[in-house]
């Protein structure tokens, strides 16, 4: 599926590095590129099936069915497993009609060299996966970090919205009331994670909803559904024997920018200190 016309949206300079430097990174990313192309085949076939079976955004809720008070959603991303294939980004774009240039979820690639140099990129938000990247340095660790709205319990975006269009539902999902939003963009400024954007078509704030139209019907978010490696896990802390809450309760998980005390409900396994 062609992603978009026009230029690459993320001007990450290391993607344009010197041809002379194009050697040492190959080993590391060769593995990933291999895995990627293998997975890509599966995904292309999968995408079609998935989209055909998925719930449409805005589809009505089951009659008398959904009670937000009975849920408390949580999400875990296992960084150690992510291969940067971008399936989740494509699934999200397709499922939620995300406008060109913007992302409800995206993947960042981190490469840390022995000398401590950190380089990060996210070409097209990782929509097309990642090409092998070449740096002149010896890379000692590299990993992918999927990002999205953290559905913070103390979300600055909700706090700062002047009209209450951004709100936190009792089930823990942070949502935007598109009919009430005045498009001031204050919440976009307020989100420390770059999760929000003003939709250029509707002129209102937009962001990840954990596929609210799906989860309220008992389905999982599209990104979770489509991840071939089980990196993304979606759970409900109010459900019995919930795997995801169990991980959060028992494993060494981490959140992004914990110093801001936004209390994200998105947790990471294997997060490294370079990630912001």
């Amino acid at each position, binding site marked *: 599926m062609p992603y978009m016309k026009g230029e690459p949206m*993320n001007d990450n300079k290391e993607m344009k590095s010197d041809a002379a430097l194009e050697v040492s990174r190959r080993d590391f990313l060769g593995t990933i590129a291999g895995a990627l192309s293998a997975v890509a085949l599966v995904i292309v076939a999968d995408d079609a099936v998935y989209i055909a079976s998925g719930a449409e955004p805005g589809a009505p809720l089951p009659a008398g069915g959904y009670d937000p008070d009975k849920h408390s959603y949580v999400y875990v991303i296992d960084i150690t497993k992510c291969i940067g294939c971008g399936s989740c980004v494509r699934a999200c774009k397709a499922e939620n009609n995300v406008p060109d240039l913007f992302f409800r979820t995206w993947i960042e690639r981190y490469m840390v060299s022995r000398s401590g*140099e*950190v380089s990060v990129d996210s070409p097209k*938000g990782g929509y097309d996966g990642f090409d092998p990247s070449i740096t002149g340095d010896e890379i000692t660790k590299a990993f992918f970090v999927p990002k999205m709205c953290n559905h913070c319990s103390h979300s*600055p975006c909700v706090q700062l919205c002047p009209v209450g269009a951004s709100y936190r539902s009792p089930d823990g999902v942070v949502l935007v009331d598109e009919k009430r939003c005045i*498009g*001031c963009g204050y919440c976009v*400024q307020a989100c420390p994670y770059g999760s929000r954007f003003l939709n250029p078509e509707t002129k*209102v704030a937009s962001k990840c909803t954990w596929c609210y139209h799906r989860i309220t019907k008992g389905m999982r978010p599209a990104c979770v559904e489509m991840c071939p490696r089980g990196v993304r896990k979606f759970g409900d802390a109010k459900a019995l024997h919930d795997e995801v809450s169990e991980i959060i309760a028992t494993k060494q998980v981490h959140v992004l920018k914990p110093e801001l005390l936004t209390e994200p409900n998105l947790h990471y396994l294997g997060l490294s200190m370079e990630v912001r």
Partner: protein
Amino acid sequence: MLQESLNFVFPNDFHIMWSLMIVIYPYVTGIVAGAFIVSSLYHVFGRDELKPVGRLSMVASLAFLLIATTPLLLHLGHPERALNIVITPHFTSAMAAFGMIYTCYLTLLTLEIWLVYRKDIIMVAARSRGIKRVIFSVLSLGVYDISEESLRIDHRAIIVLASLGIPAACILHGYVGFMFGSVKANAWWSTPLMPIIFLFSAVTSGIAMIIILYQSLMRLSGQKIIGECVQSLSRWLWLFTIMTVTLEMLEIISLAYKKGEEWLVIGPLLGTKLAFPFIAVQVVFGSLIPIVLLAIVVLMKPFLTNPLRNTIAFVASLILLIQVFAMRWNVVIGGQIFSKSMRGFRDPYVPELFGREGALAAIAIFITPFVLLAIFNKFLPMYETSDEPSGGESA
């Protein structure tokens, strides 16, 4: 130590979203608050030397207040829903208070101006005929009593309103600073100093605007510029400029000294993308030069002629208006240049020329208050035409 190459922005962070309009907005409200403070120096604090600008500063404050919402409306994605801020305000948001603060201040200011001009309005109504007479009779609200006693009551009411107006003006503008200062996601904005810096620079821009307006008004209407008045304004301006610049510099120095995570990106930002608007325009040209010029006006008074001092004060005021604009630009635009990834800068922002949030719209907004002032002055002069005390104005 982690080393950074500043080339990664979050994918959603590629453009600068708050535009020139959001620069204009605090700039205009700053002038509103600053001009009002000048009028209060006369009405409340009895600085009699400021009597010649007592009315002008009040009316100027109103003229700028009347257009203060325009840049916001032009910026909103859904301006037709703007009233939601008043109908369904969300009180944990600083922005939600805007409607109320604005309305309170507008009411207060209009009432005060009416009281100050009440006698003039009645006189104009009595002197004129036809439509003008009708309009001015309506403006007098049917109260024609201009006895000593009633003017004395007016006078007392004016002092009360002007006193209430001081905190109102401070809140009006302090809240604008708070709007930025309370965004903890943005290291360049998020400092408790922000509202204070905004307030001080607001007063600076207000006094500077009054010095310019006063001298222009006097020239245009062939009146004499009263040196004492300009001298006093210059002294206040000097004081407020020094305090503003000190606060602005303290903020940068403490960021640079603490060298927190934010300095990784703010340091390079000041050295590259903001080198011109911040270091060259705001600090060197906009702050140092006026401080020196005003020092000359204030400290070398016995050696300089009145017209020369007036001219120097005029020039210093013009530069300070540019300084304050640069400060707003550097806060609003500068604060958006670096991505929240703290690892890179967004695409540069150049305002479009035409278009809703473009430079022409901004210029039109900025010119409007001057047009409003000219119209107002045609009917109700903003300077004292004779010695007769009007509207219980003398403090």
